[in-house]
């Protein structure tokens, strides 16, 4: 021990090897070799084979694991004698020192980012910013491949001939839309019908409820894409029954949470109910192009009921006389008093059932038809972006074509262009005119060519003649790196201007630009594309929780879940909060639907607002229904999936895939003959399984109080939830709150995790060993600066891999 201290302090070159022989190897021999030896090679690991300092340095991955297992106490396994803690510390210290020494020896290398094809989101945004055409042409393209968790990785994004074909067709459409206006589709109809909704029918009216109806199961919600600005016909079809003697129901249609129409529906009487079946109401309204949240709801459903219901604002209409109990009651003359009483009770029950439910009217489906009276012709925004000359149709003068094409090319290629470079595109203008086309047709042809050019479709960072090993990316490349990182789109005029002037790289300019960019609404792309993939929120869209087990899960809830997480991430970004809020925060963003789902009172209405979570079990991304749902199976929670989610996305320690021939979990047992936890603990009795599951499962167990769609629960089937756990290092916790406290204590692991994820996304390539110093640097900055979001982004933007690239001198 004494020897170790001296060595570390003196840092003599000979010491690493000496220490290995004197301290490390004996430790391994005593504690590890009995399994991990050359003969047994338990878990494919032969520690005996590492007999020199260098052999360890060369097997970084293996030794990272060894370090981890010794440090967390996972190894030696339970049952084996515990090693002396001082010795263990000495060994882990030695390994870390070796790693550091080796890291310092890594030659600085910014890596190489393979030419990045614009992915679908980037293509859509770039076309929008370049030409003012927001038609989402790439939605028709094949799905982008993803790697390292993101779909913007240069090496992975392929370009098939099918996609090439789509590029060509789409370029023509975009060019025509920009210059002559979008194609106006013929009116067509789309019906949207939610799956069957199962909700509790109530014969008692309520007084406290959502009068907008939006957060009630009678409503329907979806996201509709409107192809162009224009008028659209909305047809709303109700279904169900209303007690006879009720006022007509009022149906409301909402666009993006705003009420645009109220329509009242009276219905013919059929027995003791008014039958809404077969009714429909329609209206027309103007809607702007793009995606909108559409909802149909039944307003103040418990008002206007017959007086006998004793609800709020009852109807004035006459109601049919209550049926006489005599209709249901026949007491035979020879009945005993007990029998008579029983019969009377039954009759009363039947009489009560004659009352029609108060809330059995709902929106069955909606249809949207259109567009009608759509705006024709190009938008003024498009014209402004295209006609650099400043004059429009018919007034162009000589030289306009050159000016227009040059300005388009500069923006499309995101860099300055030379005269000779644009010559071929200019020739296309002339060629089109020679073929009988107009000047505008000519510009369109040239624009099409620009849009299928590799300079537009790819972000290629060309090698320069420099013989250096490392060189800075040029100013334009930096501008694109910034804009595709933060906006998933092209650099705007200001970035291009700064790049042209060669002044973007200055650290003050750069940080001012980053701040400006994060404030811009376009930064929502970072929420959608980075957070959406990092936290796996995109998977929420295709999640299909079992309808029998979770009848409450419908599209409005799904949309609300996603929105909460988006707003939460956006809040951290825009308010520059600590990224540790992700793990635990005493606030979130809720609307009535989600607040009700979480059991949080006093949140009324459809709009989202910041809500204080003090005193609840919620807080942080882990307790958000979105994450809890995507980390569950359709029918049940999975502590394994959730544990894996935490390890992968928050702690940066993905478990290896399960070995072959693992016996499956006996799911059928869970909830009936044993709790899920008991079943899983039986599974873990298998030592092979235990080595990974002892890491994953406790994390997941800590979240067991949330069911497979994120609802709080105290029971699983007939078993009480046990949400306690012990991590491999012995730290114990009870329930989600204590688990979060433990996770939050592990700041550095989380900061490193977020940094790696974001760096991967920002660079568009998988990370390598030589990126380690950069990650450490960013993590250190975060620790110094309260883990602020802007520090993370600036740290990445200023890091070597983001600023530099390999030169030809790199071997």
């Amino acid at each position, binding site marked *: 021990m004494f020897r170790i201290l001296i060595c570390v302090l003196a840092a003599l070159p000979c010491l690493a090897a000496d220490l290995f022989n004197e301290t490390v190897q004996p430790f391994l021999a005593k504690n590890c070799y009995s399994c991990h030896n050359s003969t047994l090679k338990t878990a494919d690991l032969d520690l005996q084979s590492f007999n020199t300092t260098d052999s360890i340095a060369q097997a970084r991955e293996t030794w990272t694991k060894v370090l981890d297992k010794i440090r967390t106490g996972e190894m030696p396994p339970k049952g084996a004698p515990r090693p002396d803690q001082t010795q263990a510390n000495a060994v882990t210290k030695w390994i870390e020192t070796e790693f550091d020494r080796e890291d310092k020896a890594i030659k600085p290398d910014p890596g190489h980012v393979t030419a990045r094809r614009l992915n679908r989101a980037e293509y859509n945004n770039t076309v929008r910013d370049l030409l003012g055409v927001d038609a989402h042409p790439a939605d028709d393209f094949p799905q982008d*491949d993803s790697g390292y968790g993101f779909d913007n990785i240069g090496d992975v994004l392929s370009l098939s*001939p099918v996609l090439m*074909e789509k590029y060509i067709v789409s370029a023509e459409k975009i060019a025509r839309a920009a210059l002559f206006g979008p194609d106006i589709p013929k009116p067509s*109809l789309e019906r949207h019908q939610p799956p069957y909704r199962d909700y509790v029918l109530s014969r008692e009216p309520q007084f406290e409820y959502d009068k907008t109806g939006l957060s009630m199961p009678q409503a329907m919600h979806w996201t509709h894409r409107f192809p162009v600005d224009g008028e659209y016909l909305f047809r709303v079809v109700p279904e169900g029954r209303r007690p006879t003697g009720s006022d007509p129901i009022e149906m409301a249609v909402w666009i993006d949470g705003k009420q645009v129409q109220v329509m009242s529906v009276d219905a013919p009487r059929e027995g003791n109910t008014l039958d809404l079946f077969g009714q429909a109401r329609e209206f027309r309204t103007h809607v702007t192009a793009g995606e909108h949240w559409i909802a149909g709801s039944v307003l103040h459903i418990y008002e206007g009921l017959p007086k006998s219901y004793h609800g709020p604002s009852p109807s004035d209409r006459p109601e049919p006389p209550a049926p006489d109990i005599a209709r249901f009651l026949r007491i035979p003359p020879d009945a005993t008093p007990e029998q008579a009483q029983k019969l009377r009770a039954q009759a009363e029950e039947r009489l009560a059932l004659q009352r029609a439910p108060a809330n059995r009217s709902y929106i069955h489906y909606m249809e949207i038809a259109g567009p009608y009276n759509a705006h024709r012709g190009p938008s003024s925004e498009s014209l402004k972006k295209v006609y650099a000359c400043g004059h429009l149709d018919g007034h162009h003068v000589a030289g306009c074509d050159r000016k227009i094409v040059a300005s388009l090319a500069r923006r499309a290629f995101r860099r300055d262009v030379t005269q000779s470079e644009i010559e071929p595109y200019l020739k296309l203008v002339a060629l089109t005119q020679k073929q009988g086309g107009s000047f505008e047709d000519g510009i369109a042809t040239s624009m099409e060519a620009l849009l299928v*050019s590799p300079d537009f479709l790819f972000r290629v960072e060309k*090698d320069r003649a420099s013989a250096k090993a490392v060189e800075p990316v040029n100013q334009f490349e930096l501008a694109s790196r910034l804009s595709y990182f933060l906006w998933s789109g092209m650099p705007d005029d200001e970035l291009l201007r700064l790049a042209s002037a060669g002044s973007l790289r200055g650290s003050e300019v750069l940080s001012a630009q980053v701040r400006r960019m994060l404030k811009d609404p376009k930064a929502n792309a970072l929420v959608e594309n980075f957070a959406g993939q990092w936290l796996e929120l995109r998977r929420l869209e295709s999640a299909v929780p079992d309808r029998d087990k979770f009848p409450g899960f419908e599209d409005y809830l799904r949309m609300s879940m996603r929105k909460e997480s988006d707003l939460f991430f956006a809040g951290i970004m825009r308010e520059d909060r600590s990224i540790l809020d992700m793990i635990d925060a005493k606030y979130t963003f809720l609307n009535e639907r989600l607040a009700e789902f979480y059991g949080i009172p006093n949140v009324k209405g459809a709009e989202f607002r910041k809500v204080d979570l003090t005193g609840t079990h919620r807080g942080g991304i882990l307790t958000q229904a979105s994450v809890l749902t995507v980390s569950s199976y359709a029918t049940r929670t999975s502590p394994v999936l959730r544990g894996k989610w935490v390890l992968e996305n928050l702690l940066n320690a993905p478990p290896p895939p399960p070995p072959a021939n693992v016996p499956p979990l006996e799911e059928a047992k869970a909830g009936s003959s044993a709790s899920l936890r008991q079943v899983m603990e039986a599974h873990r009795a298998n030592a092979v399984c235990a080595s990974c599951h002892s890491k994953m499962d406790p994390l997941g167990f800590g979240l067991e109080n949330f069911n497979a769609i994120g609802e709080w629960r105290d029971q699983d089937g007939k078993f009480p939830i046990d949400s306690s756990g012990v991590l491999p290092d012995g730290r114990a916790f009870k329930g989600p709150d204590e688990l979060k406290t433990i996770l939050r204590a592990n700041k550095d692991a989380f900061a490193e995790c977020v940094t790696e994820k974001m760096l991967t996304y920002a660079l568009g390539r998988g990370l390598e060993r030589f990126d380690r110093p950069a990650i450490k640097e960013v993590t250190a900055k975060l620790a110094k600066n309260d883990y602020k979001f802007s520090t993370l982004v600036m740290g990445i933007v200023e890091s070597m891999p983001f600023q530099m690239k390999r030169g030809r001198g790199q071997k």
Partner: protein
Amino acid sequence: MIVTGKHLSRRTLLRGFGTALALPMLDAMAPAMGKGAASAAPLRLAFNYIPNGVNYKEWRPAGNGADFQFSRILKPIEHHRKDMLVLSGLDIHNGNALGDGGGDHARAGASYLTGVHPHKTAGADIHGGTSADQIAAEVAGKQTRLASLELGCEDSRTVGNCDTGYSCAYTNSISWRNPTLPLPPETNPRVIFERLFGTDDLQVDPATKARRTLLRKSILDVVGERTQKLLSDVGPADRRKLDEYMTGVREVERRIQMSEADTHKFTPNLEKPTGVPISFGDYVKLMFDLQVLAFQADLTRVSTFMYGREGSVRTYNEIGVADPHHPITHHRNLPDLLEKIAKINTFHVELFGYYLDKLKATRDGDGTLLDHSMIVYGGALCDGNQHGHENVPTVLVGRAGGRFSTGRHIAYPQGTPITNLYMALLDQMGVHPESIGDSNGKLEHLTDL
């Protein structure tokens, strides 16, 4: 966690190559006219499926043989009398419960063209049979660009349990490539059109088209040259990406050349649909237009069409029936419900008449498309009230190239499997499976004189 030397999975890379193999029609390249059309015209086979059974009293024609009288429901196609056969007495035995309890609608859809009793499940382990159209397509589809078409007018994305314990796959699809692969119908007319004719606007005149082709070639020249230049400036990883790009450019160029060399062009006389028409009648007619075009251009010789999925709850406001279809077919012999059923049945036949008129009006080889077709119309339930799978409504139109002796009502003895009809139809197409589902021979009397 940084994993050094981690390589992208083989699958990720392969996915890129896979797409290169399945090229769709390139837009500007309209299909060449089928070579068979000029000489001996090929036979076409189509099945048109109506859900929920019929009002049988109003369906069955009076009298047998050549002297039959048209029923109210079949009346709208009376002018095709000489080209058609009404077939009575055909059964779909395997649509019955056979011990499986409820779920007749699911079994109806799944057994109609397969003759197989489907495995009762709401889960992923669906199991039915191979449908007659797919057995035909296996052979006839080799000569056309699309082996078969599966169309429908009711969105079938629904998953899960659809009819008392049966998977929606059973109610949604009558076409089955194999016992575990149902082929759900495509319901979007635009997507069908693009599958047939590519994505380009086909309504432009030849001169404009030639000009566009020329400009497109020039565009490809410009970007091709640019890429060659760029290739010399980049390292190997980037070069691989740009090579993919160049492969795409060359592929498109090659196909432009092919289409220019092909003087035998087919231009559909139909504007590209933008989506689903608002009225059901227009919707069905558009789907028939598309099938006629596909046959006319010899893009396929086999198609199936579903008016609705089995158990459909569509409302027919345009003919004054505001109630959903399925509930009223449980008519309990109430006259007003029976009347509504008859109205819907008649409306369906009227729309079918539109299809027949079009086939009859389209020249094909030495005759009309209808002459060279075998068009089946019918469903897998007789009376919806009892969920009867016997004596299902069936009409066969088209002369199969003159081989069928049409213009008759043939009543078959009880227990004749409908699959025998399919055996006979496939026989005409030169496809000779040993059996289809529960078939026990080829249906007789179709060619009787």
